[in-house]
């Protein structure tokens, strides 16, 4: 079961002939993901790693029966790549690309709201259902199958948490990176709802950071709708106001979005908040 991706995932890779796209296509195939083809405009008809390359997402989806697309297209062209995947009516689109302009993402968001597609990302490490499927760039070897759902705005910090869980013998149902941009496709709230509904997930780990109000909304949702226990970690306790901390979305503006504010809200709804990443598995196990 798990959420979003599993053994039935049939994956297209947008930007499959690029350096990043090619490297991670190999990694995903090695993990066992069912990659059914790729897209690079102008390179239709070629083959990469034994997979057919198409000029357009529509042709690729029709020919392969794909149900997920992952995007490694460079930032200047990434928004158009997402719009193309929406137009081809793919139910799930995962955008790894970092650095997409906000204006482009506002247009994408608007198109998304009128479609049936779900976007995860951009600027995210993607999805990993241990032992079944990997879509994106998460290192597969640090994860193991289990019943803890992981959702995160970060990349390497997510690996840190997954690794810490695995070291303690705690496996994961699905790991979801929602990305560090101010405007994204899937929120904490969306993923929490999916984990709550997923029979394979028993507990949830949420990794947030400073900036925005997504964690606050998540806390409210947990208080009202979640029956499964949640453990959280929030990065950026020491971040100064008005400075962007790496992720475009990680910025405290006008005193809104501080780590202290988010931690207090989580604690008020019974979420246990870890002080260090190593503490996450302790809180999950107890």
């Amino acid at each position, binding site marked *: 079961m798990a959420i979003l991706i599993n053994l039935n995932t049939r994956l297209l890779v947008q930007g499959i002939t690029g350096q990043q796209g090619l490297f991670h296509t190999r990694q995903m195939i090695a993990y066992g993901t069912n990659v059914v083809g790729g897209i690079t405009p102008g390179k239709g008809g070629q083959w990469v790693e034994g997979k057919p390359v198409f000029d357009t997402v529509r042709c690729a989806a029709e020919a392969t029966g794909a149900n997920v697309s992952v995007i490694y297209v460079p930032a200047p062209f990434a928004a158009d790549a997402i719009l193309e995947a929406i137009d081809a009516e793919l139910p799930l689109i995962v955008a790894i690309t970092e650095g997409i302009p906000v204006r482009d993402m506002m247009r994408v968001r608007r198109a998304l709201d009128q479609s049936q597609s779900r976007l995860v990302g951009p600027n995210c490490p993607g999805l990993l259902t241990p032992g079944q499927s990997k879509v994106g760039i998460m290192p597969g070897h640090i994860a193991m199958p289990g019943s803890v759902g992981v959702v*995160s705005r970060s*990349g*390497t910090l997510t*690996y840190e948490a997954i*690794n810490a869980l695995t070291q303690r013998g705690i496996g994961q149902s699905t790991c979801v990176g929602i990305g560090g941009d101010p405007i994204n496709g899937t929120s904490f709230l969306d993923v929490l709802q999916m984990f709550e509904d997923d029979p394979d997930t028993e507990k949830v780990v949420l990794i947030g950071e400073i900036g925005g109000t997504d964690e606050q909304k998540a806390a409210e949702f947990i208080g009202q709708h979640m029956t499964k226990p949640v453990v959280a970690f929030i990065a950026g306790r020491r*971040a*100064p106001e008005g400075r962007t901390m790496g992720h475009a979305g990680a910025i405290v503006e006008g005193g809104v979005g501080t780590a202290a504010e988010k931690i207090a809200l989580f604690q008020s709804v019974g979420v246990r908040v870890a002080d260090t990443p190593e503490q996450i598995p302790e809180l999950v196990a107890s």
Partner: protein
Amino acid sequence: MNLHEYQAKSRLEAFGIPVPHGQVAGTPQEARRIAENLGGTVVVKAQVLTGGRGKAGGVKLAWTPAEAEAHAQAILGMNIKGHIVRQVLVDPASAIKQEIYLGITNDRAARKPVIICSAEGGMDIEEVNRRKPEAIIREHVDPLLGLCDFQINALASGIELPYPLWKQFRRLAQALYDCFIASDATLCEINPLAITEEGDLLALDAKMSIDDNSLFRHPDLAALRDTSAEPEAETRARAANLSYVRLDGQIGCLVNGAGLAMATMDMTSLYGEADGIGPANFLDIGGGADAETVAAALRIILTDPDVKAILLNIFGGITRADEVARGVIQAFSEFESDLPKIVRLVGTNEEEGRRLLEEAHIPNIITATTLSEAARKAVAAVKGG
């Protein structure tokens, strides 16, 4: 990236927004010449990328060219919140009947641009929002439809703008939105927007911020970046594609990934706070960094005189630990440094990375396996030194 007032105003003017026709001076003599050419009363305004210029004495009215020169003399070189004034804008002074506020920014929660208007111009909009929130009128803009005339009418009505000005106001608000979109701005603000005695709208002051991620398609805007006000290390970091923010602690942090870099900062201050020890910087080398990037990052940390220990925290996913090790070796072969170096390398190719570091015999390397251990050792190293 923020634009100076004079840059923002010239950009607004290109989109058809009326602005005063002033000029920029780098010396008091130039300011005098500009004032002579303009004739009449002028305003001499410090050009710095920070707010609160007026309170700091960086904005002065001058009735004569000699006075303009004297004010420029006083303002140039002034330190306003850590920013040194290197240029002043000399604008013709205007006779003002009323001052209003008009700005556009992105509303993150609504995922749309929002245009904001208030009859309380000339003061900080955040301040107006605290004191008199009902004085602020907002309209969210659908990015596919653009700003509609009925929305501008709603703003005009909301601030009780005299009806004879509505036509002018519609043109101006539309131009501001066009400028916001065409510039990939995250903020376009006219404050104050003056209603002059002659009954015209005039943008007396303006602020613009541009989305850094969009600069690839705006070389003209990218060229406007003023790096003179920021720490040199941040300029160099940007050139090397590193995300760097200087902080006030002693532990120089080098990390892959923004979230992990923040967590590393948090851990060092968690363990060091009691002794006044904390991170000297936020530094994310990004995903898939090669040896050259790591070396560039270390050079930046090593030139910070406040750094008493270096903490290298790498969780290799796409980033390979052996590449990171090569960068570390390269950097320390250029710079002799006795500083304690706490190294935590885990993930892809970690054994190879550790072996390379051991064989390089770099002085004063301390290894750690977990983030907490690394942070504690870094704090201890600063205390011990």
